[in-house]
């Protein structure tokens, strides 16, 4: 999902923790207690969460770029205002999540630097281009829809600041998802060209969206500790299945065709997708998606071009402090 690079082993990083404290910690988790910033926690718990929350934050910020690509071209003033407000919401989520990650002891600057140098990851989905207005509808409908599937369980995550951030984020995401679906509905009820635009967008986004949930359970290296610590409550495949089951009837309602001729409904009523091309997923994670370089370049450019502004603000704050100090001394 927004934190795909977590699918790696953490074994080397595990410290030997004080056994009594660790047991007490696990007992609190088992009792569905929330862990707060000043509470004792195992180093690996802190590290896992720092990575997960900061990757989520990076995804929100990089995710502003594909949608931001259409703000200046939105087709009506109402759509323009809604899209600008939506992308602004994503920025707010990023800010909120960096703040949650900072409660674990790493500064926003360090976290952002890790993203800009390519060390930290963000969701693979934002490495695909937005080519038409229908992509904006599709991102809201499917990308935000998939994000919600993943994030609703995170509202019950054991780490308090993350869980609380997710409650707010999910409220806004479900609004975005409805907005995206409404864009699609308008296109599908529009001219033949608009309907073709909607189908084309679905064709391009469907498989990358399914990949957002991460590798299949049978090959996922996701450690059991995330489950034990109640950070992750459902497996990748479980969440993917939930998403597909929710989405297929929506596509049918829109009159669009899911671009998967092998998809079948099983006896239990689940829509089972055909094989996913995991090589594409690996390539995108490795930096070879269509937009990886553009996305990082855009974030680096904003960061570098803004350096003198941040320096000016810091210099002014320092001057002001000195003047106030001098005044008080008089």
């Amino acid at each position, binding site marked *: 999902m927004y934190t795909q690079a977590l699918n790696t082993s953490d074994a080397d990083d595990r410290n030997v923790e004080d056994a009594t404290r660790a047991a007490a910690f696990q007992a609190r988790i088992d009792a569905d207690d929330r862990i707060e910033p000043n509470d004792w926690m195992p180093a690996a718990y802190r590290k896992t969460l720092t990575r997960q929350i900061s990757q989520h934050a990076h995804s929100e*910020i990089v995710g*502003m*770029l594909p949608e*931001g690509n259409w*703000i*200046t*071209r*939105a*087709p*009506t*003033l*109402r*759509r*323009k*205002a809604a899209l*600008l*407000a939506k*992308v*602004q919401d994503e*920025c*707010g989520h*990023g*800010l909120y999540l*960096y703040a949650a990650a900072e409660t674990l002891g790493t500064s926003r600057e360090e976290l952002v630097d890790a993203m800009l140098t390519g060390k930290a990851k963000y969701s693979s989905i934002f490495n695909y281009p937005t080519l038409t*207005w229908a992509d904006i509808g599709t991102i809201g409908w499917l990308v935000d829809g998939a994000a919600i599937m993943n994030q609703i369980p995170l509202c019950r995550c054991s780490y308090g600041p993350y869980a609380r951030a997710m409650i707010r984020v999910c409220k806004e995401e479900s609004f975005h998802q409805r907005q995206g679906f409404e864009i699609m509905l*308008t*296109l599908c009820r*529009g*001219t033949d*060209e*608009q309907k073709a635009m909607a189908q084309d967008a679905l064709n391009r986004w469907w498989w990358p969206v399914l990949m957002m949930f991460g590798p299949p359970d049978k090959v996922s290296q996701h450690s059991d500790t995330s489950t034990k610590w109640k950070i992750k409550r459902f497996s990748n495949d479980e969440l993917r299945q939930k998403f597909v089951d929710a989405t297929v009837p929506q596509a049918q309602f829109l009159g669009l065709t899911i671009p998967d001729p092998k998809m079948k409904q099983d006896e239990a009523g689940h829509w089972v997708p055909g094989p996913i091309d995991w090589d594409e997923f690996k390539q995108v994670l490795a930096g070879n998606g269509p937009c990886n370089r553009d996305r990082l370049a*855009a974030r680096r*450019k*904003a960061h570098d*071009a*803004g*350096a*003198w*502004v*941040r*320096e*000016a*603000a810091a*210099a*002014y704050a320092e*001057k002001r402090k000195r003047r106030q100090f001098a005044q008080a001394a008089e």
Partner: protein
Amino acid sequence: MAVANVEISETPLVLYTLRRADDALILGHRLSEWCGHAPTLEEDMALANMGLDLLGQARELYTYAARVEGKDNDEDKLAYLRDVRQYRNLLLVEQPNGDFARTMVRQFFHAAFADLYWRAMMQSKDATLAAIAAKSEKESAYHVRHSSEWIIRLGDGTEESHHRAQTAIDDLWSFTGEMFSVDGSEHGLIDAGIAVDPVSLYPQWLKTITAVVNEATLALPASNWMQQGGRGGRHSEHLGHLLSELQSLQRTFPGATW
């Protein structure tokens, strides 16, 4: 297939309202160009906020202009189906974002004016304009505060930020005079107590600008030469590019509903 521009019956009140709507849309559009690219996340949100305020003002003003005109136009036709010669905004608001200093100086010059303007317009005998002004003034008051704080930070920050802020002031100064000019179409509305006479706002605007610029250790240019033309549709080269982007879908897919 090319889409024809809409025709507007520019009666004084329609033209007056359109001019303010165009100011708000074009400046809002410029601010929206920053989205995802600002110097800090906090500022990304602030720029989007101001952009959204201005878009909201534009929508109300276009809707009112269309209603006053009483033809088949609406907010989207007015925004998306007029070409550069039909746009009536100030030259100041169409100037490109440039660096952050330039964006903030443009915002500051305009907001310091708009805030006084909306406050005066709250007394308009036209109830709709008075209501739009009452809402817009709350927004412009924040825009003044936000941009003036940045002018001070940049002017009194580092050598580089001082230089950039001063360059922006020097470059944009000649576009400020147009805010205070009045043509024949507005005199009647001013006399009738519907429109605001911007000339009366100039001393207060200059006082606000001077105070902030002085605190920022910056200086206003000595030159008093002022560019004019936006109100009559004689724009800089920049507006055509902005409009070709803004209007691309409406022009490519005539008559579609979005």
